[in-house]
């Protein structure tokens, strides 16, 4: 653990490890001494400070807010010693370390006012702390939600609707990854510099993290649990597929059948969802009201069963197609892409037609982002208010 010192370079606060601070101070003092008598001394010093600050900024990111001692040394080595130009008459060049260092590299503990304003937010994938490709992580940062909620939403979408996975893959391809510190800052809308660190420290942001009794152990436990679950799921899936493959033969028509099956399954799912929503909101399914002695939960259960009966064989048939078309295991992804491309295209055409011919739908879709934002806000206030 190292002590951290906050300094001000060219108007921005940086946090340095103590050893790094000493090195920087010595460097700037030497520079000031070498430039003794130079009429532009102050200007050169402030230029140098600005350049050092720029190099520090390139090292920092939203998750890394302190410049390490080694990094300071590397930056100073990159800067090189200050060489007073040859034609200059230098008086008192042995000024010694007594001269004051760069005017604004002022003392310990100086704190910059909270920047607060933030920067425009953009959607990126964030790799740090990601589970797969960082899509949920990035979405969480974008919506200012805990990424766990976003992951949960994707998982639910996949289980009940089958599209979560597809949306995920499309986003993993389309959404850029946050690579540079600037992009990482834009992903969460937070300034990446030390100002943010200070602001969070002021808000007691890090206090909550200390409350966790044994973070390392709990993380290790989580990691192991996840690995076991994954292994089980893979084993189960494998057994299932090989069972099916033994009982079926490959047919060339499968390449065409597969997307149709996917589409059909999607349609069944949408119909089921609509039925469920209408049941829960109006107590009737597609205009047919329930008999008086049947409770709503029983009707919902029946809907679930009906969906299972309809969608189960479709799912099984799709899996069969996958297993037989993608015979060497690695061609699976191609089959998947073909399937996805065809049924997505058909769905997109249908969607376009629907939007084109029903203006109400267009209005509803246009209001979607606002609705999503409101929902995210509600969840956030609920989360904070616990």
């Amino acid at each position, binding site marked *: 653990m190292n002590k951290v010192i906050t300094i001000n370079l060219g108007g921005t606060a940086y946090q340095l490890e103590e050893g790094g601070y000493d090195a920087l101070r010595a460097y700037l003092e030497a520079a000031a001494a070498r430039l003794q008598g*130079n009429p*532009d001394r102050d200007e050169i010093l402030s230029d*140098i400070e600005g*350049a050092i600050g*720029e190099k520090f900024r390139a090292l920092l990111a939203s998750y890394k807010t302190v410049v390490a001692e080694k990094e300071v040394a590397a930056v100073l080595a*990159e800067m090189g010693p200050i060489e007073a130009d040859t034609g200059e008459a230098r008086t008192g060049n042995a000024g010694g370390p007594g001269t004051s260092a760069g005017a604004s590299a002022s003392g310990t503990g100086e704190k910059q006012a909270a920047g607060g304003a933030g920067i425009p937010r953009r959607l990126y994938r964030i790799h740090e702390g990601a589970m797969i490709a960082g899509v949920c992580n990035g979405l969480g940062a974008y919506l200012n939600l805990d990424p766990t909620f976003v992951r949960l939403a994707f998982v639910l979408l996949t289980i009940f609707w089958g599209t979560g996975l597809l949306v995920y893959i499309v986003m993993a391809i389309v959404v850029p990854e946050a690579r540079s510190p*600037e992009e990482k800052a834009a992903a969460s809308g937070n300034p990446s510099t030390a100002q943010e660190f200070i602001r969070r420290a002021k808000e007691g942001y890090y206090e909550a993290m200390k409350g966790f009794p044994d973070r390392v152990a709990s993380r290790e436990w989580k990691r192991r649990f996840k690995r076991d679950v994954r292994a089980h799921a893979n084993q189960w899936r494998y057994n299932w597929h090989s069972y099916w493959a033994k009982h079926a033969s490959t047919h060339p028509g499968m390449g065409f059948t597969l997307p149709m099956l996917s589409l059909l399954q999607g349609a069944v799912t949408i119909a089921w969802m609509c039925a469920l929503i209408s049941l829960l909101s109006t107590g009737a399914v597609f205009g047919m009201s329930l008999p008086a002695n049947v409770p709503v939960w029983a009707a919902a259960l029946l809907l679930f069963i009906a969906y299972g009966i309809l969608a189960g064989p479709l799912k099984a048939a799709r899996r069969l197609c996958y297993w037989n078309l993608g015979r060497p295991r690695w061609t699976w992804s191609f089959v998947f892409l073909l399937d996805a491309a065809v049924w997505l295209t058909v769905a997109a055409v249908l969607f376009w037609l629907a939007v084109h011919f029903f203006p109400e739908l267009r209005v509803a879709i246009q209001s979607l982002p606002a609705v999503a934002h409101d929902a995210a806000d509600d969840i956030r206030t609920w989360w904070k208010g616990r």
Partner: protein
Amino acid sequence: MSVNEKFSAIRKGLLEFLVLQIVAADKVYVADILKQLSATEFATQEGTLYPLLSKMRREGLLDYEWKESENGPPRKYYTLTAKGREQLRETLEYWGQINGTVKKLGQK
């Protein structure tokens, strides 16, 4: 003493000439200049370049303007003054002469 060491003083003297040439081509800031020089024998560091630039500005060869950067504080972008342009022209001419002399001398 290697050739590299023998020429260190000459390289140092030529640096100003090269900076004039780089600035003449485009508006640049310090990192640009360093980058262009880094691939050559004249690779240098901020510690050398900042004092040199300020000296050249004082002599009226260069001028600079502040420009906003996309990330971080504004930067100084250097441009050549009329005097700097004149100096560059003279230096190029002189450099040509020296080159010719180096090639010609000792040949019969």
